[in-house]
């Protein structure tokens, strides 16, 4: 019976060590952190990890390390029973995926890799618009950790997938870490296995798995994903500096960080019996996880982030789209300068409200773009062994419909510095609401200290303990959001809301916070043709959960339509900020 658990996440910049203990239920004891030491001049992940654990020892008074040895199991209040780890250090798991048709086998290969926690550095397909020599050059230039080669249905033509094999053979790419041959997972047409073996067997570490698209209407990602997990541990991790020591020290296999977060999101969706969307916005990348209709998806937007990648958000979102979220004037020149300076000095923090709101405006755009990216990949025919009818095939060929329906999301969890450490929780809620525009009824929460990776890996060993800690210490409930769908004229009555304590009519264009700590039954009647998710004008009666902000009522319309005229837009934003008790900066900063 375990009494204390150490879980660490080795991120690309910080190593975070957390101690959990069982005393009246599992709970968080303390958290220590230190800079990650995977890169030069240290080149050993363990140094940063020891530092983080030593901070934990100082904070708790519990000895966990004896020199460089972990005290396992726990006894007399010292040591730990389990030592678990996740890692995304050194750039995470970088994969190249290949498939015959971009929107079919190549897309399935992408989903397999992303779902296994990888970053997809490129997706090669025969219809990707590039010439063969360009593809070969590209394969040679990138140095992936693992390659996933898919293509063709079982029993179908083998020519196309063999063409991909030829390209790979001609390119002879080198691995990012170490000098061993790159692992290639072949998960395409089974009839081509023999030829692929002849073509690639000598040059690569070839692993053959079941076809990810055995038939056009079946996607089978499980075996390829398992192979990725195995290779991540056996091949990639062993090449990373110091990881052999970490693998020896942990009591259970190391997981890639996004894979652990994904596990936690899936566990949560199962527990809630609903749809969940989770986002982690970092300095360089933004990960989006979703479970819709029991189908799990994950995407990573590699260049959407708030420090190193902040200018890429500026380029992709464009300056006017960032400016539209600011309740004050800022010239494009000032904005560009501010973002460029944040990019080159990423550890600075906003001191003024104007500066804070500029960063939060960029965050809205990064979140919006990351969700768009997620929607484009989380399409129909996703997940394991999902059978489709013949009639669906036509729509699949032209590209499946997205599974992400923002009027059917039950819970959104935000994590990453800009959301978890926003000076006000209302700011975190507003960023998520503006960027994602959830409609109908949605529960909003933030991850207090980015504990999802730790709990994800813990859930593989002790799912119940992970669940207990998640609700107790990890998630900060912000409250239920009520947002009618549709648009009216400013000031028209939009929603009639009634409960034991409240009876209110809220006008279109307004946002309102109603104090609510526990649960309460509400009847929500959308007015003038608006929709609460069950049809135009149809009343919805539901028990709603409150949170730190209470009940958040957003009658600004779905989709959100910001006033075009500049002064009106600023007034509109100011009203929203004021409704959420958020301070406004002076016109001139």
């Amino acid at each position: 019976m375990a009494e204390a658990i150490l879980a660490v996440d080795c991120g690309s910049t910080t190593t975070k060590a957390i101690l959990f203990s069982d005393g009246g239920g599992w709970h968080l004891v303390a958290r220590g952190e230190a800079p990650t030491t995977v890169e030069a001049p240290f080149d050993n992940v363990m140094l940063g990890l020891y530092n983080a654990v030593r901070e934990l020892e100082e904070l708790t008074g519990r000895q966990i390390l004896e020199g460089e040895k972990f005290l396992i199991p726990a006894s007399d209040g010292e040591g730990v029973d389990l030592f678990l780890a996740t890692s995304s250090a050194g750039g995470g798991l970088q994969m190249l995926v290949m498939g015959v048709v971009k929107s079919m086998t190549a897309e399935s290969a992408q989903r397999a890799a992303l779902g296994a926690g990888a970053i997809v550095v490129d997706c090669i397909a025969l219809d990707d618009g590039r010439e063969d020599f360009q593809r070969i050059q590209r394969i040679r230039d990138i140095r992936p950790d693992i390659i996933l080669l898919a293509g063709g249905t079982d029993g179908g033509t083998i020519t196309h997938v063999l063409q991909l094999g030829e390209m790979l053979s001609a390119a002879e790419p080198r691995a990012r870490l170490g000098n061993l041959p790159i692992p290639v997972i072949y998960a395409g047409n089974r009839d081509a296995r023999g030829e692929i073996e002849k073509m690639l067997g000598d040059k690569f570490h070839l692993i053959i798995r079941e076809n990810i698209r055995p038939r056009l209407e079946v996607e089978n990602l499980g075996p390829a994903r398992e192979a990725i997990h195995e290779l991540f541990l056996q091949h990639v991790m062993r090449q990373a500096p110091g990881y052999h020591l970490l693998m020896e020290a942990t009591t259970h296999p190391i997981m890639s960080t996004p894979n652990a977060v994904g596990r936690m999101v899936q566990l949560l969706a199962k527990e809630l019996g609903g749809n969940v969307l989770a986002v982690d916005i970092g300095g360089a990348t933004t990960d989006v996880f979703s479970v819709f209709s029991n189908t799990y998806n994950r995407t990573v937007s590699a260049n959407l982030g708030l420090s190193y990648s902040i200018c890429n958000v500026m380029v992709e979102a464009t300056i006017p789209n960032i400016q539209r979220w600011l309740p004050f004037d800022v010239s494009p020149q000032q904005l560009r300068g501010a973002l460029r300076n944040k990019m080159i000095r990423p550890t600075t923090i906003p001191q003024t409200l104007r500066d804070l709101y500029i960063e939060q405006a960029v965050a809205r755009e990064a979140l919006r773009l990351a969700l768009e990216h997620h929607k484009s990949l989380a399409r129909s025919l996703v997940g394991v062994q999902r059978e489709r009818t013949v009639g669906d095939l036509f729509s699949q060929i032209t590209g499946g419909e997205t599974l992400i329906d923002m009027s059917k999301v039950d819970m959104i969890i935000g994590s990453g510095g800009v959301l978890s450490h926003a000076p006000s929780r209302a700011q975190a809620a507003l960023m998520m609401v503006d960027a994602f525009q959830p409609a109908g009824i949605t529960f909003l929460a933030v991850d207090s200290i980015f504990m999802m990776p730790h709990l994800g890996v813990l859930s593989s060993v002790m799912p119940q303990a992970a669940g207990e800690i998640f609700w107790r210490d990890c998630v900060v409930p912000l409250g239920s959001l009520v947002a009618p769908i549709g648009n009216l004229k400013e000031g028209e009555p939009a929603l009639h809301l009634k409960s034991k304590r409240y009876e209110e009519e809220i006008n279109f264009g307004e946002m309102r916070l109603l104090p609510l700590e526990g649960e309460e039954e509400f009847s929500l009647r959308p007015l003038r043709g608006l929709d609460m998710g069950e049809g135009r004008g149809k009343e919805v009666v539901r028990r709603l959960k409150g949170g730190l902000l209470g009940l958040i009522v957003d009658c600004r319309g779905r989709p959100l339509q910001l006033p075009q005229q500049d002064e009106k837009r600023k007034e509109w934003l100011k009203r929203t900020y004021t409704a959420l008790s958020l301070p406004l900066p002076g016109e001139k900063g």
Partner: protein
Amino acid sequence: MSQAYTPGLTITPYTVIRKTRRLPLKGEVLVRIGERVEPATPVARAFLPGEVHIVKAGEILGVAGEDLGRYLLKREGEKVERDETIASATSFFGLSRRVVRSPVKGTIENISPLTGNVSIREEPKPILLCAYVEGEVVEVLPNEGVVVEAKGAFLQGIFGVGGERWGKLLVAVNSPDEEIREVKEEARDCILVGGRIGSEALKRAVEVGVKGVVVGGIYDEVLSDFLGYDIGVAITGQENIPLTLIIMEGFGDLPLARRTFQLLKRFDGFSASINGATQIRAGVVRPEIIIPHKEEIPSYKERFPERLVLGTRVRIIREPYFGSLGEVVALPSELRVLETGARARVAEVLLEGGERVVVPRANLEIILEK
């Protein structure tokens, strides 16, 4: 984790600089230990395997892959010229003839009876690695490259674009805040130094054939105009641009730090090597200026603290005092609430204008000047 931010950028008049010059793949080292090298001296060379072109021969001839062999005029390993016929087929009793020509000069690498494709690899391309800095070869990495040691001034900038270049330093202004407005013909092949630069002067620098530009600050619009696009991710150095641009302080109307200006002025006319490559994410690569010389000058690092203490000269690197210089006059230990509502560790700074302000320590940069 909360500590004063010092970017660790080095600005020093004299130090020993070691540059590892490594080939992208194994090759041949051309110099020996102890040899003196100039920036342009070749130190190693290798042959990059040529690009592979896949020719869909079976498809062009209209024959199955397994039958292709009968129509081929070349075999695996044979050399071919560009446009040389490598396969041909005749049909309709000799009335129609289809031919497959090689798109490049190279070698037939693979003939696939399965796909009917022929892979042709271009000739290997020689790549020559030069020394980049003036100095001495102190180590040979067999088949891989060398380590070149230079002695002289070493300055790191905050951001740059463009790769390795070298030339004579030419300080084009009289003060660290002066903008480079005029670029004369004599600046050809030189590295221009100034407080700031605008689009017109940059264009002129390109026309004249300037090798590099080093400035304190630049407006982002000027940089975008120069590159022809907006930089997204902060990884640079590979741009295809005619000169290397190094920004020492940041974006906006920022002069060169006085000490940096004095240092560059001191070595006006000296040969220097520069590289704009920047990568801010893990690993942190910053642009650099190397000025080899023989005068041993004590390093600033020995005389200035790297930690914030009372009296430390600082520059504020974030709004609302962005770019202001001052001196640390108090370092309260307790966290303070900022205007944003966040709590942070702060310092009190006496600005040059006499104003006393409170600034998060994360937004301060120690400057090496008195």
